[in-house]
């Protein structure tokens, strides 16, 4: 079986046909006098892999923090799944179906892989602390149910061999994978990945790319991804938005963005 690379028109058409999942309208965010994000609008469509790129300090991570409610933008409207909002707490974002991973791994280092992923299911558990401590009846059934889901994720990301290992002792690439697993445990509709490949070697990057594509393809999860490795970004993503100094300078399919002079300017730098 041969897979033909789709033409630019086809790619564009496919992107247009999709339904909008998250829409950002004229969003601005500032810390005191520092403008982190200036009047940015873009959308993320259902089922796509959307990359957010830009040089250091361009406001990419701030953007993610706005999306999952960690930062409250001073201006602008965010629409997620048809619901408009201005401000939201992160845990509400999670219950709405937004999960994320972090630029510098933020796992519970002393806990095992299994427990870390189980922590990702916390918001989905319905029994109260008392019953959970007793581990009896409905609480036990619920725990088994969640454990099954966690095992499916472990299987999906191929981390069976580190199930019981404290994550602090794992190599970096695997920690990143555990973090992805924890985010997946929330069964998100939208998954935000903040530099999932930072600090990885080639093989680990290849693995991670494979998993991101699998998550997108098999689980149907929409993915927003910040990444510095241009090769990865161009290969994985359906559409790319480029930020520079808090402004949006380009938005489109990878081929378009790559040839955009302003992007080349901002990203690679030109001799002035």
């Amino acid at each position: 079986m041969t897979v033909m690379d789709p033409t630019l028109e086809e790619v564009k058409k496919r992107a247009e046909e999709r339904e909008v999942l998250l829409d950002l309208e004229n969003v601005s965010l500032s810390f005191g006098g520092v403008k982190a994000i200036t009047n940015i609008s873009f959308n993320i469509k259902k089922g796509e892999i959307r990359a957010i790129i830009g040089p250091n300090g361009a406001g990419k991570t701030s953007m993610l923090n706005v999306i999952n409610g960690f930062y409250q933008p001073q201006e602008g409207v965010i629409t997620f799944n048809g619901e408009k909002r201005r401000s939201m707490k992160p845990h509400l974002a999670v219950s709405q179906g937004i999960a994320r991973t972090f630029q510098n791994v933020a796992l519970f280092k002393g806990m095992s892989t299994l427990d870390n992923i189980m922590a990702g299911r916390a918001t989905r558990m319905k029994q109260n602390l008392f019953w959970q401590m007793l581990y009896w009846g409905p609480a036990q059934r619920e725990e088994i149910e969640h454990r099954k889901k966690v095992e499916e994720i472990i299987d999906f990301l191929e981390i069976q061999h580190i199930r019981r290992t404290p994550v602090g002792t794992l190599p970096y690439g695997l920690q990143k994978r555990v973090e992805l697993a924890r985010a997946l445990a929330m069964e998100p509709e939208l998954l935000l990945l903040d530099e999932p490949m930072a600090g990885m070697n080639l093989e680990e990057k290849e693995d991670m790319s494979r998993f991101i594509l699998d998550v997108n393809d098999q689980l149907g999860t929409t993915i927003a991804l910040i990444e510095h490795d241009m090769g990865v970004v161009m290969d994985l993503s359906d559409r790319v938005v480029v930020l520079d100094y808090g402004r949006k300078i380009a938005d489109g399919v990878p081929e378009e963005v790559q040839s955009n002079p302003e992007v080349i300017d901002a990203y690679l730098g030109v001799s002035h």
Partner: protein
Amino acid sequence: MQVPPSAGMDTFPQLLIRNAREWGDRPAYREKDLGIWQSWTWREVLGEVRKLSLGLKSLGCKEGDKVAVIGANRPHLYWVFAAVQALGGIPIPVYSDSVAEEIAYVLGHAEVRFAVVEDQEQVDKLLEMSEKLPLLEHVIYEDPKGLRDYDHTSLHRYLSVQEAGQTLLDNDEKLADDWFDAVSAGKSEDIAVILYTSGTTGRPKGVMLTFNNLVVAVQNANKFDNLDENADTVAYLPMAWVGDHVFSYAQCLTAGYCVNCPEGPETVSIDRKEIAPTYMFAPPRVFEGMLTHITVRMEDAGKMKKKLFDYFLNYANQVGERILNGEKVSLFERIKYAVGEFCVYGPLKNEMGFSRVRVAYTAGEAIGPEIFKFYRSIGLNLKQLYGQTESSVFITSQPDGQIYADTVGVPMPDVEVKIAESGEVMYRSPGAFLGYYKNDEATKDTKTEDGWVHTGDAGMFLENGHLKIIDRAKDVGKLTDGSMFAPKYIENKLKFFPNIKEAVTFGNERDYVCAFVNIDLVAVGNWAERNNIAYASYQELAAHPDVYKTIQSHVDQVNKDLSEEPMMAGAQIKRFLVLHKELDPDDGELTRTQKVRRNFVADRYAPLIEAFYAGETSKHVVTEVTFEDGRQGTIEATVEIRDMDTHSTKAMSAIGEAAE
């Protein structure tokens, strides 16, 4: 499901029916999936196999068809063997880590029509090679991950093939009886399986084994070690290898014991610990690996623990083996050993998953006497056996209580072994293969008309009747001064040092012996860490002066050992180097079963060998390598060559003394 009363015991599907009848509710296969051990009883296995078999039949699989099985050890893949054999087809397991071309060669040579594979990885390889495989009609995969969007005209999911079989069964009551009748019609002289040997030289050859070969050889082996339906074993070695086919399929069906499949290659040690098999097999490198791992971890243990560990291991060294062999040991010694068992040996065996082991085998390569002794001293009944694909594994084996580290035991029941005039070991046995598939010439070269099979190994019988293997017969050569040169024999001595992972020696028709050495990255890396030696790569560590010094001392020790054996004393190592890259099957330097391909290595590193005999002390080389993703690259290095002093032989010095 109705299990018919009788179906004979000649073929494996027939044995499967017997097992479902005799031990219907006993576990036959277990697999750890989603963190839980899932089991199938013999009756369930029979049901699964029948569904699959009928599903395959509906796809067109018929008598004489070859079906490739590619993947890691999964119960579902073992069932394919029985399902295909029930139809009169011939299963052909293929090494799952082979690259696409290697797989294509085997499938093309065997004229395979169906392939049952594990996952997307294997499907992709077959699709890549589809043009070279015009006969391959259907590919069936077990794990659907990533395969959703593939073209499914000739691609099928394992489950849906089984469902198709089940639907047929539901619609036609007679079908079940027909299937059982077809199974009963299986004859013992039919070909059960074709196993492709990994081949240290040339293309792989397809070894045809009949049901009779396997069943008789295996029944004898079961008797030899008292294996019955209560045994448990862990399947983790490549399915294409005769050892796994015998231990995890043939022996399992004949004895009725349970085979446990781990989650994946990385979880084997965890899963083994959970299952605690009673019968196990591992090549020497696995035992070496475990010992290295434990030694490294004990270095990090507390002082008290370390002292306890050292004390009791030392003690086990004195009495452990005698207790295991059932020799006379005083009560005091037994009590002290029991304390050791409680404090050290027991927990240690538990950690390695050996708590319940009754018999453990090692074969395939020579095992280091120290390692062998270590495991036996802590109470693990580790034994050696000698065999090959062509003999359905079993040629010789060590009976309980007669264990010697440097021999491979006595001939198994019904097996005749003789040493040919050339020094080559030959055998005649019920397990001896039918022939090589589509290669009569090779068959004629290997198997004589009266049934004696050339093993290709040089060996001799010791006075106690035990066989000792020296080397591959064709590798045994002579130095220019006429002394015998057995490369493997010397290499094994080198490899017994934990720091040395691989060694290749040269010397045939040369003036003296030279050696390539590969360091063991785990052991030497650990040593480097403890001594604050920074290194970025294998290459850098290999060239470190202190590493060279250590390896030099090992080589010296080997020379000393060799000097004590009159036959081998002439072949002491004069010069050696530590190779700048690890020998790798992806580069063709090792076979898929990790054996050195001597001639290939000699060609590839010809400049280094020239440098050996030209007396140079260092040599700059550029070597091509294949990376894991299949890309080609080169690495270059300046490799240092060191000279060694040889030891005078014992015999010589005795003469010297007499002269004085």
